[in-house]
């Protein structure tokens, strides 16, 4: 999780002027509404992630910033300027394309210089800027190569250098790491964060990979069907999702449906099955007493024991399945009402010493603040 969130949070300060603001922005393609009345502020130096499944509108939202799509309704302002009718080539915004879109007929250096040749920068300074960019992405040795002569990871860095060369106010990254393998992707995520910090550019990244969004972003907007479901810091998105959709989309989650019987400030009790104690959890957004609601809890917050523990929430069940992931194991436990609850524990012992096995009767328990009750 981003450590920058502690000291960097311009969105909490009402005096900060946002760099980008969407006001009532709607985008329709024929009858299809891709973006539905969105209001959103993004602040200078933010690393902002648009996260959602494919077709949720995240790419359309980004392309509107880049100048490749016009909003059907509403206004988009960047740095105080209304962007309506301003084409892509007149915006202080650069984009790193999903396919990288490197010019195959130009060398790495010429790709990076492409935008500079069409900027007011004097010819004599261009070479220096290109060298600076090559150094930034550590590709000095590859300046004379053509894109097809370098690896996928190097191409990704050329695309980044090319997009940053003109020192844009805003850099858009469309699934920038999607084509890389997992290990390289993780390394590159940290590189991206470093580069973002060094250059001080505002980054908006589109991704469907929630882990990537959690790693790099200062704030995440979770999107679905053209709507912003939640805009918040990674930790708050994970810990206090405002809807079952967000909870389910980010990470692994157990969902227990029932009725919110008592809502008392931060604490809510959910009745979910006959003859068992109600679940005690945190009160989520828009929960009202007597209404149907869902209790959501992350598997790693559910403890698993063979003997009955001392806890405010506990249920008994039978181990149905154990998924061994190396560093941790996920236990699938079936409750008497046939609901399956996942519990995740770190494997800090060797697997041979594990005392819980298939078909064992176990106790699952969690604290009153471990989970959250959300309106359906």
């Amino acid at each position, binding site marked *: 999780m981003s450590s920058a969130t502690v000291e960097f949070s311009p969105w909490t300060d009402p005096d900060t002027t946002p760099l980008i603001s969407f006001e009532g922005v709607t985008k329709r393609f024929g009858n299809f509404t891709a973006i539905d009345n969105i209001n959103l502020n993004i602040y200078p130096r933010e690393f902002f992630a648009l996260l959602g499944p494919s077709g949720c509108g995240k790419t359309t939202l980004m392309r509107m910033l880049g100048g490749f799509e016009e909003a059907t309704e509403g206004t988009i302002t960047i740095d105080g300027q209304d962007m309506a009718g301003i084409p892509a*080539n007149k915006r202080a915004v*650069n984009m790193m394309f999903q396919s990288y879109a490197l010019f195959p007929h130009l060398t790495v250096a010429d790709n990076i210089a492409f935008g500079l040749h069409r*900027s007011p920068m004097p010819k004599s300074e261009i070479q220096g800027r290109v060298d600076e960019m090559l150094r930034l992405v550590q590709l000095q040795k590859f300046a004379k190569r053509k894109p097809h002569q370098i690896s996928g990871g190097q191409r990704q860095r050329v695309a980044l250098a090319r997009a940053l060369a003109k020192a844009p106010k805003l850099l858009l990254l469309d699934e920038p790491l999607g084509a890389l393998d997992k290990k390289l992707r993780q390394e590159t995520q940290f590189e991206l964060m470093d580069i973002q910090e060094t250059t001080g550019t505002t980054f908006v990244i589109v991704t469907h990979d929630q882990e990537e969004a959690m790693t790099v972003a200062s704030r995440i907007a979770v999107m679905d069907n053209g709507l912003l479901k939640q805009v918040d810091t990674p930790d708050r998105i994970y810990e206090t999702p405002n809807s079952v959709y967000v909870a389910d989309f980010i990470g692994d989650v157990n969902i227990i449906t029932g009725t919110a019987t008592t809502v008392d400030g931060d604490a809510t009790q959910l009745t979910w099955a006959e003859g068992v104690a109600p679940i005690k959890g945190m009160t989520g957004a828009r929960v009202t007493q007597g209404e149907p609601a869902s209790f959501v809890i992350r598997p790693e917050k559910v403890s698993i024991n063979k003997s009955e523990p001392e806890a405010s929430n506990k249920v008994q069940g039978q181990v149905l399945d154990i998924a061994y992931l190396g560093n941790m194991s996920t236990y699938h436990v079936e409750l008497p009402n046939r609901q399956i609850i996942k519990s995740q524990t770190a494997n800090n012992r060797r697997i041979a010493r594990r005392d819980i096995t298939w078909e064992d009767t176990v106790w699952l328990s969690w604290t009153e603040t471990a989970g959250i009750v959300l309106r359906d």
Partner: protein
Amino acid sequence: MRRLLIAIPYIWLLLLFLVPFGIVLKISLSDYALSIPPFTPQLDLSTGWQGFAEFWSQLDMENYWFLTDDDLYWKAYLSSLQIAALSTFFTLLVGFPIAYGMANAPEHWRPTLMLLIILPFWTSFLIRVYAWIGILSNEGFLNQFLLAIGLISAPIKILNTDIAVYIGITYTYLPFMVLPIYATLEKLDGSLLEAAEDLGCTRLQAFWAVTVPLSKPGVIAGCFLVFIPALGEFVIPSLLGGSDTLMIGKVLWEEFFSNRDWPVASAVAIILLLILVIPIILFQRNEQKQREAGN
């Protein structure tokens, strides 16, 4: 089995290309004779080694020296090169916008547009060239139309001039220009143009900086596919061109059928082939380079 499969195209090339080439080469080294066939010496294998040696000693380069004596020939070669090069240029000028339009047309239209490009091949080439006579002659459709709208007061002479030859070649070979250019433009990744615009290009600048250089392999392929057959073109200059339109294909035909001088005609053909080998090799190299870039 595999060797047999590989052997088939080689046998085909050997029988239908190399053997005829050998025969033409041999005739070009022979002398004109009033006989059937109209050249000498003839190879008679029944006379054995002695006969072959005698046959060999009678072959010479005389016809080639003759081609350098008469300035008709080198003028015809030069004029053919000029007409072929200019026609190729005109074909490119017409063909590129067509290919560009096709590649940018909505996807569901493209097969239809492609069909329209190929459609002329369904009728005979000869008939299509004849049709141009009807259009370009003094009483032709074009002159009648221009007279009717009052743009000209007397018919202009187009048929039987070099202009008619340019029109004929450009029209006939247009598909060979359009199709390879279309193939490269269609493959062009649209995000490259967006990237160019993103980096500060106007639409037009993006076209020159990205589309044009990336369509180069198609343009080169198209130019060769037009230039190579246009250089030896015979039907179009003889039907549409004037008496002063000088093209080597026409000279070859006259040498062969009017003068019945097979040895000189063969020498003309061999020189034409040598001239063509250069662009063909360049064309092959272009294709090779494109394949390598593709991998």
